[in-house]
């Protein structure tokens, strides 16, 4: 008996791939946005050296930076429903986990950027009578955010690659579509290069964008220095 199997890629598969791409971009962009905001807030908490809170942030950051995203995904997707009232679906679990993961890395970038602002500027601001909040808002943050942009762009590019892991908990992302197509066609040398190429092109576009932004920031900073 011959089992019918469609081993060719067809036009319909283009739509399948596009659908997968949509999921990848959706999870990636939401979790990047959420992670950056969360990380930003946590970094400020840590920088303010509020007792207990600052230490908790540090522990949180170290745990999530030093464990595999895959295990984090399993913990949230399989673990959470059994010990809490939340039972996230694959996409929710993916967005939640990647948001936290991104936040942990953002804290590190942001704290480094805050520390890069010379201490003299805090002292100068204090001498003018500016409060901690005012100094942070008008003096330190504008500089720190500029410093933190390039590493954050790099993080965004690497998180796009890492997001392929969400396919393992069942999100129908680009990689998952790749697996479906591979299982159907059994053509590894056709399917994986196509899927890989799509990631490659997006990553390339992002790095060109990152380089352009970095150049613009640098131009602005030099302009300041020249004027000073």
């Amino acid at each position: 008996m011959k089992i019918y199997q469609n081993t060719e890629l067809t036009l319909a598969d283009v739509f399948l791939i596009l659908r997968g791409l949509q999921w990848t971009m959706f999870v990636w962009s939401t979790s990047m946005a959420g992670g950056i905001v969360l990380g930003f807030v946590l970094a400020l908490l840590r920088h303010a050296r509020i007792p207990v809170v600052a230490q908790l942030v540090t522990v949180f950051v170290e745990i999530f930076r030093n464990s595999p995203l895959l295990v984090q995904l399993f913990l949230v997707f399989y673990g959470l429903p059994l010990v809490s009232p939340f039972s996230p679906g694959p996409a929710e679990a993916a967005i939640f986990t990647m948001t936290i993961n991104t936040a942990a890395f953002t804290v590190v970038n942001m704290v480094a950027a805050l520390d890069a602002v010379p201490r003299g500027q805090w002292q100068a601001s204090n001498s003018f009578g500016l409060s901690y909040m005012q100094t942070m808002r008008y003096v330190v943050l504008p500089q720190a955010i500029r410093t933190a942009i390039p590493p954050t762009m790099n993080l965004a590019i690497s998180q796009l690659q890492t997001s392929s892991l969400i396919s393992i908990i069942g999100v129908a992302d680009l990689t998952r579509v790749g697996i479906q197509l591979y299982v159907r066609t059994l053509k590894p040398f056709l399917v994986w290069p196509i899927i890989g190429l799509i990631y490659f092109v997006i990553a390339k576009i992002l790095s060109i964008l990152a380089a352009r932004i970095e150049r613009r920031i640098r131009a602005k900073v030099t302009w300041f220095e020249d004027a000073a």
Partner: protein
Amino acid sequence: MGINFNSVLARSDYLLAGLQLTIFIAIGAILLSFVVGILIAICRISRIRALRIFATVYIDLFRNTPFLIQLYFIYFGLPDIGIPTEPISTGIIALGLSGAAGNAEIIRSGIETVNKGIVDATRSFALSTVQIYRFAILPIALRIAWRPLGNAFVNLVLTTSIVSTITVNDLTGNASNISAETFKPFEVFLIVLLIYCAVTFAVSAIVNVIYALFFARTTERPLIRGQA
């Protein structure tokens, strides 16, 4: 509901076996990525155009596509051209080749900081190109590259978890098995998360010890009078 570690701890031997395999894979992958990384870095700055192009394409491809896709490509692709694949060795090779791309960039920027005069001095004594690299360029470049390389090694350790997707029973793989068996996913993955943290801290510590042993003496340090 309720968190209970008993049934998971009862299978700690199984987790330990997984940890052993993870460490084995990590060591293999780190060594491979280090050696291949050096070779690719040397190709990248070679005077031979073909080698330069090869290295550039290699680095670009591996760095801009997800590791999961690379792994699937190798694991499912090789049997298609008549090379049977075995999960563990495939995992080590894929991790090593992928990590090498990042390491190559780190090592290359290390090499570029090596003082041109030192290369001249070595050349002037009739040392061959291989000897110049071995005795002068690489020891100096690796000192500068060592800390970023250490971060890359930690990252590689975390990435080993992904080889569980091609049926390797490493720490993550065995964790999934225990989770299915005991139906305690939260407890299992939480413990595994912490084990990974411990492993990465150990790797960082080893990296620091190696730095202290081999590289610390050559950095600027105050003169201790009266000591030969």
